[in-house]
């Protein structure tokens, strides 16, 4: 077991954990942050996307021991208390959520994109979410929701 120190959704945390559990499992099981989902476990579907030091990554491919000192943001950290983030509001407004399974990861990919590029082209949006599979919407509403969100 190791004592892992990192920043989770803006707060400094310390947790005792097996070094080789996946970040995905650390978040879901130790911290009860179940917004991050497991879809494939091999980094292809993107449902496990979180932000590590500002960058979208697949949490199913990262071991707990690797995140010491890092800044981790999950979907639970995007809203401002009870006030949804503009991306979340637009996802609801433009019908970008059906079953919702891909949504947390999709929102985080969008968030990471807009932090870096507040005015992305449609191609840039597609590139940013190319690693996030959605089986329900056909992506059109998701792309629109992101396009409509200007910082």
């Amino acid at each position, binding site marked *: 077991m190791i004592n892992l120190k990192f920043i989770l959704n803006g707060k400094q945390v310390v947790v005792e954990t097996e*070094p*080789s559990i996946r970040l995905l499992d650390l978040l879901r099981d130790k911290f009860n942050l179940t917004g991050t989902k497991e879809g494939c476990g*091999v980094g292809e579907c993107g449902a496990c996307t979180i932000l590590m030091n500002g960058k979208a990554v*697949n949490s199913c*491919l990262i*071991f707990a021991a690797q995140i010491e000192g890092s800044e981790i943001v999950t979907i639970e950290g995007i809203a401002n208390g009870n006030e949804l983030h503009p991306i979340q509001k637009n996802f609801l407004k433009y019908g970008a959520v059906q079953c919702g399974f891909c949504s947390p990861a999709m929102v985080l990919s969008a968030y990471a994109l807009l932090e870096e590029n507040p005015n992305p082209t449609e191609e840039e949006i597609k590139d940013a979410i190319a*690693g996030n599979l959605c089986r329900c919407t056909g992506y059109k509403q998701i792309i629109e929701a992101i396009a409509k969100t200007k910082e």
Partner: protein
Amino acid sequence: MPSIEILTPQSLNEVLGILSNNDKVLKIIAGGTDVVTGLKQESKRFINTEVLVDINRIAEVKGIEQRNGKISIGAASTFTEIYNNQIVSKELPILKKTVATIGSLQIRNRATIAGNFVNNAPCADTVPALLVYNTTIEIESINSKREISLQDFLQGPYKTQLKKDEIVTRINIPVPPKTFVGDFYKLGRRQAVAISRITLAVLMELNENKINEIRIASGAVTPIGTRFPKLEKFAKGNEMNDNFLKTLASKMGEEIIKLTGLRWSSEYKLPVVQQMFYQMLSVILNRAKPR
């Protein structure tokens, strides 16, 4: 997945010490996009791994710099870092184009260039571009330091020269002269998160319309990424016109079959390689035409 020990050394010296000292089954991990999936799928290459050595914090294997006509890329540079880098954008456009086609943004934010060619899958995306750039790599162990051509390093599918106590530290590319032009092509079953079925890289120097020098490499159509020295020699000195490009493309197909024999995929891949190779060269030819 079995419980694995994970070490997070802070310096290259520490890494070299760990690699030299250990009787346990060790694997280096950087981005983890091959290692973790390999462990999960119980791949033969990763089975029995007892210790993972995380090299993400090792300064000596990060960073991209230009010095004395060479560009030095840290082995653990992520594809995102490479894509966003000014030096790469200016001097190594074929490499930049290559890394943009790899995986997804999430993968590119973690996966590293050395991880890609040290794994050396037949479809390793970075290999063709690195081969046409005449890349050399630096490899270190506690007792040795060597620099060899990437071509010599890669031995076979999933097989490289890397010894148990060694780590690739830097990737060195001589800055191509400004007169060199080239391109990269990847065919996958979809636009992103796709394993290459065919990759092609070309770098050439034209004198008016004649080929001064041409470097050709493919991936995913032969057992490992490879250059085509016979083809390159054949093309040298020839005028680059439409007919010659067709001849060259046809010969490219022949060379590939010589290396692989007829495979189940040849019926599809061969005409696609020939056509795409011809198209790539045509685009380069058109770009080079004076306006």
